[in-house]
């Protein structure tokens, strides 16, 4: 059911064209942050307005859309964004990673490997990987232009000197095709290896007015040192519902006495495994039956 008062997927065609041009430029220069005239959306800045604009510019009426937040299809903001496109675009939606042609995500890459033809759209809060080292946009743009990334390496080195390890657990910086240092959005560093993907990956930052992109099979290297190699760690557990030993886990507090369980953050991945008969340590009786 489409809201007839608005254009397909809310944005007018001129605006979509402007965004598509930014996306194409981003794909042509992987990892480079393309400024774009971000519009004011009917949801707050910081809640996915960049991702929503990129998704709106990519969607066609034949697309099947999946929206996740923290890996889950049913977190409130994912529900809200999915409903927005159902209402303004009338597009088909799914929770199945394999069935989706466009996936908008916040903070996760789906566990199921993406394939050619799929588009993964990230919501990005702070697109500038150097922002917390240098607050000025005028300076950071210069640093990117000159490939001046010494400051970032010094920061990682200082981490090791102070803490014995690189103390960045999410939004872990990467280098794209040996050129631009890029913020992969606040995904856990566990997800970083999957930034090398067969799908098109688009990053939208609405408030900061930036779009950047990774074309399929782009080389993406997480920054590290030879003697301190990158470590995509996760909780040392299996999923208590589906038993997966390789997926990223959320920790759920069960009671006020330290009881906890670990479950897949990717709800579709977990549900699919359970449907196939996989069981975890705390699966309920009905599940096992």
């Amino acid at each position, binding site marked *: 059911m489409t809201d007839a008062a608005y254009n397909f997927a809310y944005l007018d065609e001129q605006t979509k064209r402007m965004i598509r041009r930014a996306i194409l430029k981003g794909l042509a220069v992987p990892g480079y942050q393309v400024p774009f005239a971000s519009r004011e959306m009917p949801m*707050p800045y910081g809640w996915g307005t960049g991702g929503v604009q990129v998704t709106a510019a990519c969607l066609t009426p034949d697309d099947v859309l999946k929206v996740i937040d923290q890996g889950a299809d049913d977190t409130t903001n994912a529900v809200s964004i999915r409903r927005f496109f159902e209402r303004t675009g009338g597009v088909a939606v799914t929770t199945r990673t394999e069935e989706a042609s466009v996936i908008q995500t916040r903070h996760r890459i789906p566990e199921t490997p993406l394939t050619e033809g799929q588009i993964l759209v990230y919501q990005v809060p702070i697109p500038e990987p150097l922002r917390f080292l240098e607050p000025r946009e005028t300076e950071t743009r210069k640093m990117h232009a000159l490939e001046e990334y010494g400051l970032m390496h010094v920061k990682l080195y200082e981490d090791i000197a102070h803490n014995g390890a690189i103390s960045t657990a*999410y939004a872990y910086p990467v280098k794209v095709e040996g050129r631009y240092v890029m913020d992969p959005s606040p995904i856990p560093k566990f997800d970083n290896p999957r930034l090398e993907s067969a799908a098109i990956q688009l990053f939208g930052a609405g*408030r900061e007015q930036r779009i950047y992109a990774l074309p399929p099979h782009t080389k993406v290297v997480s920054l590290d040192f030879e003697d301190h190699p990158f470590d995509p760690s996760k909780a040392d557990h299996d999923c208590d519902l589906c038993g997966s030993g390789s997926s990223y886990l959320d920790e759920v507090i069960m009671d006020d006495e330290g009881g906890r369980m670990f479950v897949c953050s990717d709800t579709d991945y977990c549900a699919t495994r359970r449907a196939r008969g996989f069981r975890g340590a705390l699966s309920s009786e009905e599940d096992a039956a």
Partner: protein
Amino acid sequence: MYVAVKGGERAIEAAHDWLAEERRGDPAVPELTLEQIREQMTLAVNRVMAEGSLYDPDLAALAIKQARGDLIEAIFLLRAYRTTLPRLGVSIPVDTGAMRCDRRVSATFKDVPGGQVLGPTFDYTHRLLDFALAAEGEAPRARQAEPRQEPTPRVTEFLNKDGLIQDEVRTEDTPPDMTRQPMEYPAGRALRLQALTRGDEGFVLGMAYSTQRGYGRTHPFVGELRIGAVEVEMEIPELGFAICIGEVTLTECETVNQFSGSRTEPPQFTRGYGLVFGQTERKAISMALVDRSLRWQELGEENTGAPAQDEEFVLAHADNIQGTGFLEHIKLPHYVDFQSELELVRRMRADAMTAKDPAT
């Protein structure tokens, strides 16, 4: 047993229903009409139009009603609506010299051609709660007089005749539109003024206040403050000339600042400029102070490192819709990021404990 968090959709719907009920309040109390808000909450309507960058008192009143009086939320509603409107064209610059002034004061001259006109101002009211207002009474009537007929020339023009104030050079360039192209720094004055006029009143006030207190000293006088209606004219290509398409109320403030001269400029007075939709005096004066402060480079002044001299700092943080959105987004789930932090802290703690007590 843990049950995956389902039902987000139902929870959202229920929350929205509750919100609607709370917005209405006690149904025994008559509902506010948009006309009441527009006519009796005029300064709130003005602020919402100014920071929403959309001059429409009825829509602003609707936004205030829908937002339960939360003005930043109302500004957000207006901005989101504004996005959906086509940009039909550009008006010719409004002539504030021809403004029909409701209020016009100068702090630099005792009397000026056109006169000092106080208008409907809070100035000189004693801020005593008027308990009579709590009861409904007859509508107050102000005394009437013949309107002044003479023109109200701009006060700064008097100084300009003697070359005592820095000249503003007229250009015919079409200014950039910050709602249609991404902000880039350095922004230039036209973009700066756009960002300030829609910037958060509290933020712009705070920045202006900081320059008065000594963080990047500006020493301004209100050369002139005028509030009133101006005509908006637009060139219509089919006609080949400009016609009046409507009227807006504006507040304009020009400050006169002392300036001792620099290597490039002789000693003279300089200007700061504020122009805001509606009767929005505090904002227009604040804007003029911040504008002047940001002009340090152009006038060859020293950068003392004051926040209000820093264009990128001021412009990047003046917008309350951007600010409130990003601030409030930390309410959204962050389980995944938090989990990765949790693991990192646990591992680093374990390493630190082992290092401290290698025996165990």
